């Protein structure tokens, strides 16, 4: 029997998704956070060296233009913040090329929100409150946990994530039967951290609890600002439940020059590793130059959150039509 036309999720899970969206809107409306909508197609795109995007041809006769499907609504939302929107949230699709697996679909749904005047700790409070608001009836969770990246890394592996030691890191990989880590990671601190964190640490995080890891090493700061007291770490947080990564947040970088520098750096890395060329978002730089209010923001993957709430083993169980049936 050919069943490709049918959804991969149950009708119950479609209902649960609708309820989840409604609850999220209630939560933010009660807190006076404004719901916004930003374009999925844009003239620029994130420069993150680890993300690949989709492009499409825009035909405005006689001109042709390349537009990017957004890997995240972050840049457009920051432009709204700079324009004086105040705190905002959005439920939208995001697109990442080549990502497909048990926890990935190239087109997925994000909840992204920004809180003007919040620092990272206040943002973490709100994430806990949101999860506590959404989970009853589906999932019983223990008290939320907060650890620094360094604490959790050291506790589980005995390694210091802030100081790169090829000898220690490779000895750990060999002792754990993964000699392939050496050629994969080489002398790149960031790669080693990704390898060790995703293989040995993440699976243990947030067993029946919301677990927030903050204070990421500076080399993994992405769009977060560096910590004002310790330049080795950045004000970035990642959120996990039952070993599943749900979201990523920052105390946002507001310095236009620093942002510009990171863009150039990432574009150079993309070039070096033969990744498709991207265009720096000049509008974001201009918005930062104009002035982004002090704010903290985070994106939560709603498909993954639905997986956690329903105890699903694959993202297909919560999507109507994953990419192979789309």
């Amino acid at each position, binding site marked *: 029997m050919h069943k490709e036309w049918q959804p991969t999720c149950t009708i119950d899970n479609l209902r649960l998704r609708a309820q989840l969206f409604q609850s999220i809107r209630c939560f933010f409306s009660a807190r006076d956070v404004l719901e916004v909508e930003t374009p999925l197609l844009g003239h620029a795109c994130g420069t*993150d060296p680890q993300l690949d995007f989709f492009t499409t041809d825009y035909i405005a006769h006689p001109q042709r233009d390349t537009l990017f499907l957004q890997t995240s609504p972050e840049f457009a939302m920051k432009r709204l913040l700079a324009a004086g929107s105040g705190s905002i949230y959005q439920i939208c699709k995001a697109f990442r090329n*080549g990502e497909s*697996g048990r926890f990935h679909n190239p087109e997925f749904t994000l909840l992204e929100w920004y809180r003007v005047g919040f620092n990272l700790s206040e943002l973490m409070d709100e994430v806990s409150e949101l999860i506590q608001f959404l989970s009853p009836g589906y999932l019983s969770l223990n008290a939320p946990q907060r650890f620094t990246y360094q604490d959790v890394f050291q506790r589980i592996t005995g390694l210091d994530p802030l100081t790169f030691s090829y000898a220690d890191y490779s000895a750990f990989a060999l002792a754990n*039967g993964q000699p*392939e880590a050496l050629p994969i990671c080489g002398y790149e601190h*960031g790669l080693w951290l*990704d*390898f060790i964190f995703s293989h040995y640490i993440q699976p243990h995080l947030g067993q029946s609890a919301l677990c927030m890891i903050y204070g990421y090493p500076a080399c993994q700061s992405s769009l977060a600002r560096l910590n004002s007291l310790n330049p080795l770490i950045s004000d970035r947080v*990642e959120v996990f439940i039952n070993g599943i990564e749900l979201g990523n947040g920052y105390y946002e970088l507001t310095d236009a020059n620093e942002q510009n520098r990171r863009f150039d750096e990432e574009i150079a890395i993309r070039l070096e590793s033969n990744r498709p060329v991207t265009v720096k978002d000049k509008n974001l730089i201009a918005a930062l130059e104009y002035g982004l209010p002090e704010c903290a923001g985070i994106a939560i993957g709603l498909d993954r959150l639905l997986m956690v709430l329903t105890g699903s083993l694959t993202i297909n169980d919560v999507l109507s039509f994953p990419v192979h049936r789309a």
Partner: protein
Amino acid sequence: MAIYSTNEFKSGLKIMLDNDPCAIIENEFVKPGKGQAFNRVKIRNLKTGRVIERTFKSGESLEGADVVDVEMQYLYNDGEFRHFMVPDTFEQYQCEEKLVGDASKWLKDQDNCTVTLWNDAPLSVTPINFVELAIVETDPGVRGDTSGGGGKPAKLETGAVVRVPLFVQQGEVIKVDTRTGEYISRVKE
């Protein structure tokens, strides 16, 4: 041979790893939101049968392995090699005893089996799921006992020893599941 990238590592794909032919069992895409993507892959070494876990950077690739399963008829054992034939083409293959491994205890002359070929040379032999073999040696049974409880060892014509119910007699032909080595039933002549 074709080159396969990590996103093509589907279960059953045959690839070369560390100079050995291997089969992909499971492939999990692992990617920290802001980090390097990896594929954690479970792989069976087709020479040793061992299962290992190996991580690849997403986008890495491996060479395919020229491994095919061919239905063949088992012909005979010349003491050094076992000989097999493809019924359609009459093409013959000889296979060292150590490659035949556990399959040897289920192989009866003229029976069909699956021979896995790597670069056109036998790699392993898999017997068909159910074989019918005669009992050459077993303790005299207790007549009337059809309970099936307990049982006794019985040696089959190929040398395999299986547990059979007490009522099954020497000289009878029985059906055995080669995957579990369990007795299924008597075969009426």
